């Protein structure tokens, strides 16, 4: 794993993957790449990586590549998106058109494409988008701006917190079958769980 940024240095859930059921292991390992994209153009992928980087506060390309791949998979699914406001278009249309709109907003306000902007300016556009406060370009009123932000943040965050590197950093035990947990009470942890400061019970035993 690349640099570890959490409270649990040295903890790596993937070191325990041989303990997981095969189905789960396969699902999780796919998040490490390589990725193939069916739907998104390379510009759309770059835009999503930049946007997702802000939304999740992350800059490691490996992790952001998975996040963009997750967008690609989800937006390509026919199954549906559980719910949507009647005035908001289906998620694929919303996101694809939304990325173009972000580019327009960037040009309108800063005379540069979104990807050419500095981090602060990109951040500011997303902040305004969340509040629905960007100028109305095309049909992008407050409702659509907010809906776009929610869709972007929801897909980005669910992918991000499904990445095993992130699990390691936040000290999440990850998949737990067939092993389960034995020590679930306050102050107790199973020997294979993340330990604060990197010391593990394993080491103490």
């Amino acid at each position, binding site marked *: 794993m690349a640099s570890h*940024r*959490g*409270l649990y240095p040295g903890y790596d859930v993937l070191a325990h993957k041989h303990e*997981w*059921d095969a*189905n*789960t292991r396969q*699902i*999780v390992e796919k998040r490490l790449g390589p990725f193939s994209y069916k739907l998104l153009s390379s510009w759309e992928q770059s835009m999503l990586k930049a946007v997702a980087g*802000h*939304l*999740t*506060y*992350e800059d490691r390309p490996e992790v952001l590549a998975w996040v963009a791949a*997750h967008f690609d998979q989800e937006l390509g699914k*026919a*199954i*549906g*998106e*559980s*719910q*949507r*406001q*009647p005035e908001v278009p*289906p998620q694929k249309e919303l996101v694809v058109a939304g990325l173009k709109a972000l580019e327009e907003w960037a040009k309108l306000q800063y005379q540069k494409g979104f990807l050419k902007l500095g981090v602060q300016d990109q*951040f500011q556009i997303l902040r305004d988008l*969340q509040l629905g406060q960007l100028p109305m370009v095309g049909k992008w009123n407050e409702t659509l701006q907010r809906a776009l932000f*929610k869709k972007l*943040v*929801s897909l980005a*965050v*669910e*992918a*991000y*917190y*499904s990445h095993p590197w*992130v*699990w390691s*950093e*936040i*000290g*999440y*035990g*990850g*998949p*737990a*079958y*067939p*092993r*389960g*947990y*034995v020590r*679930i*009470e*306050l*102050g*107790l*942890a199973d020997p294979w*769980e*993340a330990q604060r400061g990197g010391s593990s019970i394993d080491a103490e035993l």
Partner: protein
Amino acid sequence: MTRSCDHYGNQRFTHLRQRKYAGQEVDAVVVGLGAAGGLILRDLAKAGLDVVGIEAGPFWDPASDFASDELHARTLNWQDTRLSTGQNPLRFGHNNSGRGVGGGTVHFTGVFYRFHASDFRTRTLDGVGEDWPITYADLEPYYAKLEEEIKVSGPREFPWGEFNGPYPYPVREPISGNAQVFRRGCEALGIRSAVAPLAILSAPYDGRPPCINRGFCNQGCLPNAKFSTLIQHIPQALADGAEVPSDCMVTRILVGKDGRVSGVEFVHDGRTYKQEAKLVVVSAFVVETPRLLLNSACKQFPDGLANSSGLVGKYIMPHSGHDVFAKFDEEIRLYKGTPVMAVSQDFYETDPSRGFARGYTLNAHGSRPVELAGSLAVNAGMWGKELNDTMREWNYYARITMVGEVLPSLSNYVTLSDEKDEYGMPRALVHFSYGDNDNRLIAHGVETCYQILEAAGGKRAFVIPDTAHLHGGCRMGTDPRRSVVNQYCQSHDIPNLFVCDASVFVTSGGCNPTETVMAIAARTADYITSQKYKGKLQPAALTV
């Protein structure tokens, strides 16, 4: 001995060419095999009826279809798009709707409560909502039977409501860190708490092991420790001869010239099939049940089936399900153990001094990263560095989730939109806004949660607004002008059409609803197989 959970090998539905009842009129067809439908199917099959249970989603095999992963578990949810509007638009999918054999029970948390007697009489007692046409006493025998057959684990003494324990299976021990913190806070404030009654095994039963505390109940239980309709009632129904076509979406209920229903139409792999039946039970849950009834409009019933009152789709209610978090100096580790292991119903009944009617349950509730970060982002608007920092320390947060009663209102409804889905059926349009009483109840609940967490040593952190569960849309009642079905879930308008699932709820109650959904379903099945039901159905099995 064959065990209920061993059915997958040969009984799993494979192909429509191998159908048992193709081209035949069966005694009953059940639409939707969730908590209610699966139970009715089982009970009708056991009584000797020829029954078919048609399910829109897949016939899951836990061993190969479930995984210890939040994203993957999306496949268990009803993901078809619903249009959602109102001041507090509902979120569906994972939040409340299952899809596949077992319905919502496949990914439910397993908290298993009876309603209180007061829940059935809120109009009389509190002047709000509506009285049910049944009382607690009507459901009591069914509650008891269900707890026994499911081997509900729970405390020896449960301090609230009419049933005070003991439960059939031993109480869960140990409890999770989050549950301990909850009980510590309650104790400091003089609030009573208990270990949760759970439809989760605390000891082996029927070839199934006890819970191993992996905490993935909402992703489907891999070891089969948690009850679900999929692993208990459906195998029993199959053993008694029921047929279970899965991946079959019912798109229309058919009506004969005599004005009775004659069967259903369903779509599998793009082709439409028909199943004729003497009786139809619709158990498709709070959004799909009204949608199907409305979409089945025909010459005799231009406003949809069972809808002479105009109330099909009306009075839907979620529970307010706000999540309250506090930060502690010690690690809580929300991901470990069965998600809900400690509860309190000290705030369940109306207390006039609080300034609102009815009440709520508090569940100490675990969490996982996708769920927590996702709801922080989407429902609480937190992202970027703030979200990242919070999640990095997420092991230090404890959570309490409230299950708050939401009063019925005519302006909260499901109807058909102008947009069509892949089957050519109009998408559901769902409208929901909280009322004043609901908002006052939520404010009180949130404050109580914070006080408990503070008393346990935590610091107030954040509240994530949320809802859980759904009820109503086809409420039961005695007056055909003011309700859709009678006390046995039989439609007032069409005697051989039954609607039986969470949609028949008159009020939401203030606790997790599934034991009540199932108790009502068992009572309905009893009625259908009894001599009392004098509809068209006269199965030989009942007359010999």
